[in-house]
């Protein structure tokens, strides 16, 4: 028997009962859809994350005061920003300093202790450049506004305060400040998203700010990051370098690349279950088919088919049935991925790995599901097969 004939003979049973074939491959189709969609969406999300990371850059380090041996909060020296800027390879440095004892509120009627999770930070004028951020409205602090009661709100802070446009007044300390700018979200500096930024001078003169930075942001060339990191603590605080915490905010994003969300796992699990159920459905259909087609099996044996021919025919039929389900699943799964990517503004990519995995899973399931029915068909003695009709 020729291989091309095996293909033709193995689809004859399916062509004979198309409705049943379609119903029995639905489970496989659902399972493969789930697999392709989950793998594809997670690949698209990762591609989105990679694009985000490369646009944000991985060359920023932050310096913050740590805790001393006794657990007490330490401070960075006032001159630490200037010292960091002198490290070889550093391109830009900026800093914020926490303004203690003050909260920002919509009106003076609100309890001062009710901070809403919004910090008041004194910010240097070069902060936005170093962070690579931008404003969605108004403008960032400038030499003109940093001495006056003007405030720029991070994205989260603005929405929590309910401030949607510049010119609004917020109550900060014991007086009204005018909102002059609203920031776009800063994925590498979420603490700034949740802050109200005021000028360094006005914080010192009006809000009792000590002038000690609480976070220094530093950017260097990519290849200089490791070298800068080595000397950063000692430069920022030469007397107590052990009290300095240095970190790389992009590490958090990079770490996300490696983690698969619990949802992905859940859906992959559901896909596997659907595939299993689909496989059982296919096995069932094949068993019924073998019972119904005993006459055909007997006839084929009388035409010279060996047991192996019969086994191969039913195995191939099962594999073809499942592969059809797999193809349907792949098409629907890709449609889901593309729809998701378009809706989320992610790069549209065809998840080839997922397609390959889905088809392989479908065919594998089909072969596994066909083993038992095909074995039964092959073991059937021709006499029994012919007598059954």
């Amino acid at each position, binding site marked *: 028997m020729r291989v091309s004939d095996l293909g033709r003979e193995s689809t004859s049973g399916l062509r004979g009962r198309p409705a049943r074939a379609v119903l029995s491959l639905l489970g496989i189709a659902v399972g493969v859809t789930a697999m392709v969609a989950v793998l594809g969406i997670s690949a698209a999300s990762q591609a989105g994350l990679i694009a985000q990371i490369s646009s944000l850059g991985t060359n920023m380090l932050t310096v913050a005061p740590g805790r001393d041996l006794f657990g007490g909060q330490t401070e960075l020296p006032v001159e630490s920003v200037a010292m960091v800027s002198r490290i070889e390879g550093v391109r830009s440095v900026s800093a914020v300093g926490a303004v203690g004892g003050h909260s920002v509120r919509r009106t003076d009627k609100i309890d001062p202790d009710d901070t809403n999770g919004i910090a008041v930070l004194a910010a240097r004028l070069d902060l936005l450049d170093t962070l690579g951020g931008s404003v969605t409205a108004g403008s960032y602090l400038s030499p003109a506004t940093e001495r006056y009661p003007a405030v720029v709100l991070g994205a989260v802070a603005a929405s929590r305060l309910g401030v949607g446009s510049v010119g609004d007044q917020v109550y900060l300390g014991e007086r009204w400040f005018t909102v002059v700018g609203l920031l776009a979200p800063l994925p590498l500096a979420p603490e700034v998203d949740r802050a109200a930024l005021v000028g360094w001078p006005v914080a010192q003169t009006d809000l009792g700010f000590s002038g000690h930075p609480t976070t220094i942001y530093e950017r260097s060339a990519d290849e200089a990051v490791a070298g800068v990191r080595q000397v950063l603590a000692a430069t920022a605080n030469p007397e107590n370098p052990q009290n300095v915490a240095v970190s790389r905010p992009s590490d958090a994003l990079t770490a996300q690349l490696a983690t698969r969300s619990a949802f992905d796992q859940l859906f992959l699990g559901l896909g596997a279950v659907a595939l299993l159920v689909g496989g059982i459905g296919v096995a069932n259909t094949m068993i019924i088919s073998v019972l119904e087609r005993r006459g055909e099996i007997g006839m084929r044996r009388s035409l010279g088919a060996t047991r192996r021919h019969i086994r191969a025919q039913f195995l191939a039929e099962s594999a073809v049935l499942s592969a059809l389900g797999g193809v349907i699943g792949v098409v629907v799964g890709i449609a889901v991925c593309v729809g998701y990517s378009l809706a989320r503004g992610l790069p549209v990519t065809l998840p080839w790995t997922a397609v390959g995995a889905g088809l392989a899973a479908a065919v594998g399931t089909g072969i596994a599901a066909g083993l038992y029915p095909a074995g039964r068909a092959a073991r059937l003695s021709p006499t029994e097969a012919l*007598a059954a009709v």
Partner: protein
Amino acid sequence: MTEMITASQVGKVYRGGVPALTDVSLTVRKGELVAIVGPSGSGKSTLLHLMGTLDTPTSGTVRVLGLDLSEVSDGTLSAMRAHWIGFVFQQFFLGATLSAVDNVAQGLVYQGVPRGRRRRRAAEVLDRVGLGHRLDHRPARMSGGERQRVAIARALVADPAIVLADEPTGNLDSASGAVVLDLLHQLNREGTTIVVITHDTDVADRLPRRVRIRDGAVVADSAAVSGGAG
């Protein structure tokens, strides 16, 4: 004359202990046209299956074209059926989704003949059984007699030395049955050895040799009575 099929003291007990044949000895020679007659359940089909290598006996030996069936593998038995033996059954066993040509061409699938050659050969044989005008018809669009002629064409397409027919006219009206029998006679004249099971005595009476079976044993053989029609 050459012995095509030799059954010696053959017994067959099916799983479950049903004795279908007890001590059957029978020789079919080249060019014979043999009728096997007997009541339902007497073991006719069982005997035909043994003669056609579809099954092996539980006692005694069956030789087909000189080969002892108990000594060869499933692959060899299958190859014997593919090349030397053609079967015709009462139920036709045609593929419902296949045209007449494709049904007949199936008789060459397990010989590994390429599809184009199979179909050309199938068309020739269909022409020979008088169905040259029905090549592309599916079984559902044909009469019972036409279907059985398609089945006969399928049995003939590999040019077998032996044709075994199990009640080929059982599902046919008498006119269609007569056409089918004429076909078998003609085939026999052209040299094919043929064994036909029938429980229709009119049919049996038209055949040169009659073997009568009852309860799994041969009770009469016209060849033996007349002293060797073979």
